[in-house]
């Protein structure tokens, strides 16, 4: 604690905190208020959404979560179908994205020379800077056509011949298009965290296994990945949080129909997309409150996912290097 010349002239409050400039305390106070605004915002988010969805919670009860009927005209509200749609899109995207992203991260850290790694790293991170609506636009008018004309027929003729879920008529907008757009959107998140975590694996670990005669891949599999495992998992879960909360790109390509998809091409809804699509034209207060309840569900879900992910990432990087995410 810095003591100053006029410290002795002030009455000491206690041995530890006494003798500080009034200006110093003011400074701490002002910045502290700014910091607590964050706390207020987070708390406010929950409070406002709980408040606005309270009528819906009373009317719908707990069955709101698994009830799959959503019929605003008849006042029936269940978020089950949206939960399924969210889970299907987010988890599928997460699996696809993690496979690619972890391999990219391994390539960048373990194999590529710096002059290759840097531009690739930068380009993948630029993907994260492209706005959601642009992904949506590209998703409908470019990717959607590719899904309908190329990926769709290939899937129906192969997997679709024995798994009905992969059969059906390929469409431009639907589950698969949403999954693919989300995959592209969360690859940067998962890649960046994985890359940082993998780079944080001490070189001595790699050397130890290489000196035993391991190939580079064996070094990755035996020494690097086990060491970085929980951090990579944390990165993947952060990607999941992003996929769950992603709104407009999904709204544009998912087809927007209240139903649990029976094929991978079927149109459906996620929690975020039903809010974006219906809130403005909501038919009255109950519909609006029900959408607020969906938002609350979404908020709680992403909150839990985020907390798990942060804990995992923090444990690995352990403050040695802060990973700035999102």
């Amino acid at each position, binding site marked *: 604690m*810095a003591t100053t*010349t006029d410290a002795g002239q002030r009455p000491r409050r206690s041995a530890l905190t006494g003798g500080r*400039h009034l*200006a*110093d305390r*003011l400074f*701490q106070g002002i*910045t502290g*208020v*700014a*910091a607590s*605004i*964050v706390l207020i*915002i*987070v708390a*406010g*988010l929950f409070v*406002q*959404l709980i408040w*606005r969805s309270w009528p819906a919670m009373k009317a719908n009860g707990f069955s709101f979560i698994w009830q799959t009927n959503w019929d605003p005209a008849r006042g029936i509200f269940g978020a089950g179908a949206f939960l399924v749609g969210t889970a299907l899109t987010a988890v599928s995207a997460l699996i696809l994205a993690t*496979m*690619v992203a972890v*391999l990219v991260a391994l*390539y*960048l850290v373990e*194999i*590529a020379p710096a002059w290759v790694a840097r531009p690739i790293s930068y*380009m*993948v*991170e*630029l993907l*994260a*800077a*492209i*706005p*959601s*609506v*642009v992904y949506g*636009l*590209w998703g409908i008018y*470019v990717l959607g056509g590719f899904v309908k004309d190329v990926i769709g027929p290939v899937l129906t003729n192969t997997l679709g011949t024995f798994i009905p879920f992969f059969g059906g008529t390929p469409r431009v907008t639907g589950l698969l298009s949403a999954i693919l757009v989300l995959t*592209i959107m969360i690859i940067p998140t998962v*890649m960046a965290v994985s890359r940082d975590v993998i780079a944080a694996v001490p070189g001595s670990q790699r050397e130890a296994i290489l000196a035993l005669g391991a*190939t580079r*891949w064996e070094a990755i599999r035996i020494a690097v990945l086990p060491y970085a495992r929980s951090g990579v998992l944390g990165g993947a879960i*952060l990607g999941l*949080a992003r996929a769950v*909360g992603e709104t*407009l790109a999904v709204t*544009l390509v998912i087809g927007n129909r209240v139903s649990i998809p029976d094929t991978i091409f079927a149109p459906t809804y996620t929690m*975020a997309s039903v809010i*974006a699509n219906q809130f*403005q034209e909501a038919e009255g207060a109950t519909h609006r409150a029900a959408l607020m309840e969906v938002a609350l569900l*979404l*908020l709680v879900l992403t909150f839990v996912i*985020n*907390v798990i992910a*942060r804990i995992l990432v923090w444990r690995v990087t352990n403050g040695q290097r802060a990973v700035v*995410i*999102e």
Partner: protein
Amino acid sequence: MTTASTESLFTPATESLFRRRRTTDRVMTIIMLSAAVLAVTPLVLIVFHVLTHGIGALSLSLLTEDPNPAGRPGGGVRNSIVGSAIMVGMATAIGAPIAIACGVFLSEYGQNRLGTVLRFLVDVLAGMPSITIGLFIYSLVVLPNKKFTAIAGAMALAVILIPVVARITEEMLLLVPRSLREAAFALGAPRWRTVMTVVLPTALPGIVTGLMLALSRIAGEAAPLLFTSLGNQFFSTDPFSAIDALPTRIYFYASGPFDYWHEQAWAMSLLLVGFILVVSLIVRALAGTKVTVRQ
């Protein structure tokens, strides 16, 4: 003895194992390289399509005219561009001071339990879906005032900006060498003066970099604006009325029925992506430090 281990290394079994291991290594290397190519491909494709589709619809009238009534081709998106600029500007004015002060608090007084909790909350806020942030401001500002306003939109954007800038500020402050701080302390400077005159100015380039990246991020956000600033077909600069923005107009046009809307949506995307890429390149050229903002 030496020959013994040599022999054990070159038995036929070891040989085939060795070849298998070498093949696996090569195959996995190729797979990793392919993944890298695969991951970069979407960026190249998106930039390519935005460029080729957007450049055709890009014209002076797009920048200087307001939208025609629906269904009548032509017109522009001047209102959206100006609206975006206004809201991003207001969001920065609201959010940046809070964010920077929060970052200062975290780095100066945050090496304790309270700091850990706050840092955690900042990270959690950064991960909240932007649509829920839009609803939060809708509930907090729009409903009580019974009006969609540019201010409400700016507030929603500010909520998105705050955690990003706060964390970057904290990191940039922690990068300032300890010796610099100690030199100021040794001169008898109180903490606030040390921070304001020594630490913050030293970290300023990094903070500005982070702020620019955060700006380019909120400039592309549409979801939080849907229920706050709503959108406006007409030109407006009034902070207390509904206002248009580029991302919301892209969303509106992309899901609409007219071809010229789609073309204009591509052109607006070109403006937006161009802006973001330029900011990103400038930031990268200016700052040697690694600062990234992920949307």
